[in-house]
């Protein structure tokens, strides 16, 4: 792993929820830094706070307290419009259930983030084609995603994540809905992207997948309990 500055720095981050009359801590005084170009795996049992941590890093959620510095900017203090712009420009999400628009083509799905980036149609299309080529789907541009296999859909999702040229990709159980062979293909693709310089944060419960990361952190009951790698 190359030497690089911290691109992500969480300082004393806590995220609590009120359920009924009780307060539940999804994250409890978490401190974490991630360097640029690092491949970090977050593991932990179900309900441990992995997804909450990923959502806060990705700007989908805000901490109850603490700071979240991404490239020096505290995104916890941003209002919706700027936070949305931050996600659009810096973060690519890859979800376990792909979260594609089934009735749209692969090309249209990949163009979606670029629509919100206010790029013109010609630019969007060119960029989307390039992303789909990068994931090996240049022959599936006009296929509706509900006509693709699981592995192909996840590739489209990765292409979508790449469309805005993010500095960080957050993959939440990216192989969870795939068989082992397809899962390996996806992991190879994600590793390649990481080698090209994108910071990769992967949430997984699969130890063998986590072992492919530069660093593994374990989270339990909202606390980081161990670091490996």
């Amino acid at each position, binding site marked *: 792993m190359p030497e690089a500055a911290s691109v992500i720095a969480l300082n004393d981050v806590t995220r609590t929820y009120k359920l009924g009359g009780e307060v539940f801590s999804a994250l409890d005084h978490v401190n974490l830094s991630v360097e640029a170009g690092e491949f970090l795996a977050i593991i932990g049992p179900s309900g441990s706070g992995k997804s909450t941590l990923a*959502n806060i890093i*990705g700007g*989908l*959620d805000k901490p109850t307290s603490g700071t979240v510095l991404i490239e020096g900017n505290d995104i916890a203090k941003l209002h*919706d*419009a700027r936070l*949305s*712009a931050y*996600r*659009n*420009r810096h973060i690519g*999400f890859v*979800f376990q259930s792909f*979260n594609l*628009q089934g*009735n*749209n083509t692969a090309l249209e799905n990949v163009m*979606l*983030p670029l*629509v*919100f*980036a*206010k790029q*013109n149609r010609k630019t969007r299309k060119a960029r989307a084609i390039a992303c789909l080529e990068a994931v090996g789907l240049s022959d599936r541009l006009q296929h509706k995603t509900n006509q693709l296999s699981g592995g192909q859909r996840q590739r489209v999702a990765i292409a*979508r994540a790449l469309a*805005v040229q993010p500095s960080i990709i957050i993959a939440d159980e990216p192989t969870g809905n795939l068989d082992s062979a397809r899962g390996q293909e996806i992991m190879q693709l994600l590793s390649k992207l990481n080698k090209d310089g994108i910071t990769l944060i992967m949430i997984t419960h699969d130890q063998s997948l986590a072992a492919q990361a530069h660093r593994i952190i374990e989270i339990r009951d909202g606390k980081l309990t161990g670091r490996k790698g």
Partner: protein
Amino acid sequence: MRFTDYVLIALRNIWRAKLRSALTIFAVVIGAMSVTIMLALVTGAKSFFLNQVEANGTLQQVAVSPQQDITNFNDAQHSGGGNCSANCVKLTDDIANKIKAVPHVVGVARIAGQGMLAAIGYGGQLLTLNQTTAYDANGIISNNVLAGRDIAASDTSGVITMTSDYADKFGFKGNYQGIIGKTVKLQTQDFYRGVGATVQPPQQCNGPCNSNNQPDNQPTTLTATVVGVIDTSNDSKAIRVPLEWMRQMQENQMYQMTPADQAADQADQAKCRKVPGPCNTTQHFSLVVTDMLAQNGYSSLIAKVDNSKNAASVATAIKKFGVGAADASASVKQQLTIFNIVGLVLGSIGGIALAVAAVGVVNTMVMAILERTREIGVMRAVGAKRSTVRSLFTIEASLLGFWGGVVGVLAGFGLTRIANILVNKQLASQSVKAHNIIGLPLWLILTVIGITTLIGMLAGLYPAGRAAKLDPVEALRYE
């Protein structure tokens, strides 16, 4: 995000749920069509009315009545003549000349109506005569001539124009030219003593006679040549005669004992007494013709004004002669107000349908948001702002309203074409020159589409707000 992208995404989403979108749009179509037809009807009627008013020159007219307290144009125009008693000034030639001299008055038409004529007959048919009018043929009062010509200033007697309904009844429907030049009979009332009436001296009855040996009242038959057929937009079942002939018809011919007749009687008596024996002399009577029109005055007058803006001030000036005067602007305004109220009421009825359609739009959009909750989560994850999500759904709802408006207007257009065919037939049967009066002006089309789009947008505000407020994390987890 560019506006075109909003529209394209919204259109795509509408297309994705075709049946649901079609049903929602259909409800808007019903409302839009109703509003379109109703407003087209009212707009057409208003336009037709204004065209008639302008064609008649009504806005440049002031109606003068002998009744001082008349303030309505139509009432002033149709106020009868006859004996003028309280609050009444006779409309004489002198008054007419004074009115002609009022600033901005360019001419005066004298109107006389009478009930002397009872029936009109042609070809063995005798029809009750509804109305007989006469007025100056100076162009102030104009008629729509369907065949022949109108009464001219050079006509003095023996000619009439008739409204087309009489020509129809006499068998000239569709061929009004055919009755031009024909001679008709005009039957008077029993008490008629005008021109052409047989008037006999008293106590000389050449039959039929009453018990006092006085001639029994019998109607007189006059003849006239038809010179023109007029449409029924001003009057129906009416004939028009030259003003001079009306004057003659209204004359009262009566044998009276004048002072000269009395002197002659006395002279005869004196002569007779000089001769021994019984003295039987014949009384002298002279036929006295009284101009009743001059005595009673005209029914009304119409003063033509140089500019419609001056009509009100001219009416005020004319009232100073002690007569009643009214310009048409108040009547026209009142009529237009009635049209507007009717339009509002009818439009509101159509608006109820649109309100119901709006509820349908709300329901459709709420359903769409429920179905697309995860999709909203993805949009937010890849960078859509809350305002972007709100705008997307608002525009989608607006488009539902827009398309409903477009289709509704098209459907309304089709129905107005059918309505025009029916109305054209009706107007043609009454010989009214008007065609396709129910129209869809561009402003009406744009207004209806604008209203339906606005209603769609307003209906979409609540669902769009809900969509915008969705927590992206919760939305991504939604099953």
